[in-house]
């Protein structure tokens, strides 16, 4: 590839394809942990994300009916909403959440499946995740599945019909960045569906590294919402993902143990 990519016009020359739909942005963002709706909107816009996750929770009964509503700042007709199953520790709860989400969003069936195993690490419970995947895929959901960085499980989830597999970089909200780049690389190399790093990204270079490993995209929430300036960090992440993707497509130099001079010796006058 010899042409420089410009972010506005030629982005669709390298689209992110999920379940047959092309997206311009390879950055997917969550909507949690912001200080208010205005910040949620501003950061989401600055990120350039098209796919945005939401959580499904009880409506507050008896509260102010004029309370701002997330879907007013992140309208379903402007964004692709990705309901998650955050907080679910069983396949049953996750499936129930997805079904309610689908009803809430008028039949929209793209979901982020996460079934947690442990409160401290928020690592996925793979056994329950597999159980939920089987039920959800059979029920017609398009599942983007949060998983660990085990290449065997990643392939298994793909084979079961997930439309995307999303290995974690590190624990949710930890900001540690990719802990196991070789596993992520293996997952990417074996994949027939998009691989998106989800969870644990901390700063723009982490996102760039994910893209340089060949990932198709990155999903993050805390890295942006928890930054001192979330809107600026959203912009940084957008650029980091674009830079990492371009670097990946450009084909980096190999790592070498020793030097190789950049200037010729011939013609030296000293």
């Amino acid at each position, binding site marked *: 590839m010899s042409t420089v990519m410009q972010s506005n016009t030629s982005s669709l020359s390298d689209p992110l394809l999920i379940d047959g739909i092309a997206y311009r942005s390879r950055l997917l963002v*969550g*909507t*949690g*942990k*912001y200080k208010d709706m205005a910040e*949620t909107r501003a950061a989401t816009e600055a990120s350039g994300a098209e796919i945005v*996750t*939401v*959580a*499904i*929770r*009880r*409506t507050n*009964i*008896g509260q102010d*009916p004029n309370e701002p*509503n*997330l*879907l007013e700042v992140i309208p*379903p007709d402007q964004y692709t*909403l990705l*309901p*998650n199953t*955050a907080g679910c520790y069983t396949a049953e709860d996750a499936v*129930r959440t997805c*079904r*309610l*989400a689908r*009803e*809430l*969003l008028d039949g929209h069936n793209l979901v982020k499946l996460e079934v947690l195993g442990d409160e401290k690490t928020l690592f996925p419970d793979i056994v329950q995740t597999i159980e939920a995947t089987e039920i959800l895929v059979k029920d017609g959901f398009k599942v983007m599945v949060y998983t660990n960085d085990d290449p065997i499980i990643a392939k298994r989830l793909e084979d079961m019909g997930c439309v995307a597999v999303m290995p974690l970089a590190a624990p*949710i*909200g930890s900001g540690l960045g990719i802990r196991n780049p070789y596993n992520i690389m293996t997952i990417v190399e074996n994949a027939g569906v998009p691989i998106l790093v989800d969870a644990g990204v901390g700063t723009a270079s982490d996102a760039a590294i994910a893209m340089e490993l060949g990932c198709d995209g990155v999903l*993050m*929430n*805390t890295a942006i*919402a928890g930054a001192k300036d979330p809107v600026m960090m959203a912009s940084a992440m957008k650029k980091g993902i674009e830079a990492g993707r371009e670097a990946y497509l450009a084909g980096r130099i190999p790592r070498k143990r020793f030097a190789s001079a950049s200037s010729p010796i011939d013609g030296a006058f000293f």
Partner: protein
Amino acid sequence: MEITLNGASRTIPEQTSAGDLIQSLGLADKRLALEINREIVPRSSFGQHIIRPGDTVEIVHAIGGG
């Protein structure tokens, strides 16, 4: 009659439909989903579905999350 709504006990009139309940809560124009006794009641059925004593009702919506 007594029902459980979003985890709390609530008294509502007999023969309240799901639609009536949503209306009475001021949620008629909100995007939400409703489940009664773990079964989803589609929006199109809100008017017809009559809530029974002891029913467990969940009304959910989308909020910020990662």
